[in-house]
């Protein structure tokens, strides 16, 4: 994990008891995790009575330092040992290091889940609906008498609130082909999972 000079400076400010008191420090780390995890808490430090004695600029710098540290540590899946080494270099006390580790490590997996969702991907299939029709005749052709399936794939896309549909029809043979291929893929997946 490599952080820029200004970020490191902010992290040092957060660890310095001259700027952030011991009793506010734990709150600050918790708020940083909360701010990352919940969109409605992004601004959680503003007007927070826990930080009313701290200078606004200092608080802002410290908060941004901790938020960056938490995100970077989650991104690189840092362990308690990695973090301790890093924070020791930032002149953190043993107490502050263990407070950070305790709060961060308990939230790490949630933050990683969130980070995993960031990025681009193809429409992700989340469900499938089907309908079975019996095609009897049309204006051009009588006595058709064949099964027709209407398939609707429900897909989700990153950064899109709505679920989109992909609709198409299949004859019985075509659906057999489709299911055969899906089962092939499933089997291949299960085989690899057992290794």
């Amino acid at each position, binding site marked *: 994990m490599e952080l820029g000079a200004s970020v490191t400076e902010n992290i040092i400010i957060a660890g310095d008891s001259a700027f952030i008191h011991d009793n506010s420090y734990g709150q600050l780390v918790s708020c940083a995790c909360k701010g990352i995890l919940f969109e409605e808490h992004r601004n959680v430090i503003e007007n927070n009575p826990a930080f009313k004695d701290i200078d606004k600029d200092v608080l802002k710098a410290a908060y941004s330092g901790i938020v960056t540290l938490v995100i970077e540590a989650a991104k690189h899946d840092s362990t308690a040992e990695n973090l301790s080494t890093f924070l020791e270099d930032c002149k953190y006390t043993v107490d502050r290091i263990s407070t950070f580790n305790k709060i961060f490590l308990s939230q790490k997996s949630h933050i990683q889940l969130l980070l995993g969702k*960031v990025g681009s991907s193809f429409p*992700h299939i989340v469900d499938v609906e089907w309908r*079975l029709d019996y095609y009897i005749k049309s204006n051009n052709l009588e006595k*058709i008498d064949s099964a*027709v399936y209407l398939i609707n794939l429900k897909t989700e896309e990153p950064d899109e609130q709505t679920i989109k549909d992909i609709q198409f029809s*299949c004859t019985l043979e075509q*659906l057999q082909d489709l*299911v055969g291929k899906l*089962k092939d893929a499933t089997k291949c997946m299960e085989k690899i999972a057992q290794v």
Partner: protein
Amino acid sequence: MLLIFEDAQKEHLSFLTNLDADVLREFGRISLNFIKKGANTKIFQGAAQKLKVSVETIQHGVEGLMYLLIESSKHMLNDIDFQDSIMALGFTEDTRSTLLEIYLENRKEIRDVLDEMSLDLPHYHNLEWRLDVQLASRSLRHQVTPTILLKLQTEDGGKKVSHMLQTDPVNMVHMARVLEEALQEMKSSYCRRIARNIK
């Protein structure tokens, strides 16, 4: 079920009653080509000269035959209904059986042409899949996220459209299971009974 002809159509078809089996077959071949590829009126001229009749007579003969073949195929007439339908048009028994042969030989192809012209929904064409494991992204390193990439090809009005999709193992298993159930449904006694009764 029997076909009903209008007077004009009867007249058009009556020209065919005097033709040799070979010539009739040639007319059958031309009609089929027209059904498959659209009319080509240039042929009429040559045929008219050969048979020493007017171009219109040839054109009407071909059109009448096309109508006969299309309508019989549309209704999926059986041998007997087909023969009975043309019984009143004055064909000899030999000509009738030649026409029946032409009809039966080409019924499937004509039905395919009619089917292509019918209301068409985007339909399944092909599926390709690939199993990937995502190892890292800009925002998260050290991942092991299995993903299945799917390329679904559908066809709509002769045009193929590709959809790139992906899914995770849980949804993949779910999708395979749900569609397998859909397949089984057609074999259920309920669906089989309905299908049987409609035929």
